């Protein structure tokens, strides 16, 4: 049940695009037609499902403080977590290369449709973002990490599919010239993100334990709110 919660949450509530803006570059660049959008979306799901669990293992058995204790007691105090960026990105880049080679060998048809998108994915922020959020969230097992990867991938896929469909239609409408293309896409994405915010009100079972895992955005808005509150309190005191 917890896994289902995590899955739904990572698709809708913590949508990579609409809540965190991760992978925006390829989202904007490759969303001109539905067909290419589906190709890129599928590739993102694929790579996220593979890399998040692998990075979970690396984080838990190599990088975190005390993670190396399986080598012997004297290694227990080593903390390599500052290396996590370079390890994660190396894993992602090499996995992308590997996946590309495997797909090319065994499924030329799939390679034909995904081919050009795979190298792009190495620099898609949502892939590295998935691994970094995984590190923040302290998942209890590799299954959770895998489900999280799948969920974020599906969320990204849905987002790019939706915007590609809208952009195909909007080509026929009369948009003010300076807004054409990029400008209107930004504004539509903003409106879609407002729509997706309505999912934030959904309470899911696992929420109570995970409350401390507040994410970047929440922290920022809360900070701003706190600032206001403290300002109000200090004004009362005065």
């Amino acid at each position, binding site marked *: 049940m917890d896994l289902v919660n995590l899955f739904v949450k990572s698709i809708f509530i913590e949508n990579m695009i609409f809540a965190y803006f991760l992978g925006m570059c390829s989202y904007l660049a490759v969303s001109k037609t539905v067909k290419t959008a589906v190709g890129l979306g599928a590739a993102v799901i694929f790579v996220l499902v593979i890399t998040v669990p692998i990075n979970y293992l690396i984080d838990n058995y190599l990088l975190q403080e005390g993670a190396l204790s399986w080598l012997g007691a004297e290694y227990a105090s080593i903390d390599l977590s500052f290396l996590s960026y370079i390890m994660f990105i190396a894993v992602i880049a090499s996995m992308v290369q590997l996946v590309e080679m495997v797909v090319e060998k065994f499924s030329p048809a799939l390679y034909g449709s995904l081919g050009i998108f795979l190298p792009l994915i190495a620099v898609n922020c949502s892939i590295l*973002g998935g691994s970094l959020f995984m590190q923040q969230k302290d998942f209890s097992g590799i299954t959770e990490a895998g489900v999280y990867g799948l969920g974020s991938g599906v969320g990204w896929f849905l987002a790019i599919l939706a915007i590609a469909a809208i952009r195909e239609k909007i080509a026929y409408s009369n948009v003010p010239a300076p807004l054409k293309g990029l400008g209107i896409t930004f504004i539509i994405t903003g409106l879609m993100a407002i729509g997706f915010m309505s999912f934030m009100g959904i309470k899911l079972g696992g929420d109570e334990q995970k409350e401390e895992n507040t994410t970047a955005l929440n922290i920022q808005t809360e900070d701003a709110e706190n600032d206001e509150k403290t300002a109000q309190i200090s004004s009362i005191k005065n």
Partner: protein
Amino acid sequence: MSEQKKDIKTKEEKKKEEMIFFLSKSEEKEAFLSKANRKLLTDPLDDNNPITVQVLGICSALAITVQLKPAIVMTVAVIFVMAMGNVVISLLRNLIPNRIRIIVQLVVVASLVIVVDQVLKAFLYDVSKQLSIFIGLIITNCIIMGRLEAFALGNKPWKSFLDGVGNAAGYGVILIIVAFFRELLGSGKLLGFEVLGHKGLTLADSTGLYALGYENNGFFLLSPMALIVVGLVIWYQRSRNRKLIEEN
């Protein structure tokens, strides 16, 4: 008429740049800040802005613009990473095998980002907490990869340095504009100072605009408004600079 001339001129210059890109080895010696070099610095600020024209590096640009301070810190971090990364890759450009160049680029950028991350953690801990994973995401910031790929791999170190600084500054300009409006309209502050007056619990307590009944628009603190503000910035920029308008 003069505008048209300008247009033709920039086209010629672009062609020249392309030529330089392809013929990097037969490049003639230039002054340190010759015209072409200055163009490398100023072009990304408007005509070739990474965010609004090249559509690169948007991920991090949107998420950290709630307040001005993180946006400025991020700009500085990106300028550092990008200038250094461009120089390093440009120095290595004849040694990197073509097939593994992406991994090499990622490793160079990742090491620079680790340096930035550790420095921020040491000296600006609260900002580094606010930026959370977005410092890490500089690694996959598409502007950096894009410029390494398109410029540093084919140009000399000094030119690459200028290109890096210029593009990072173009990115930073948009970041700071967006953060300015979001912080001003969202929480009525700039860099933490209450520029619109002080908001008390009641009207009588308040000063400045708040005394007139002004309210903060909390919506600007939420993520969707970042997208819309960038959209409006693009609208403004393109209606002023009409050669950037897209066909569709």
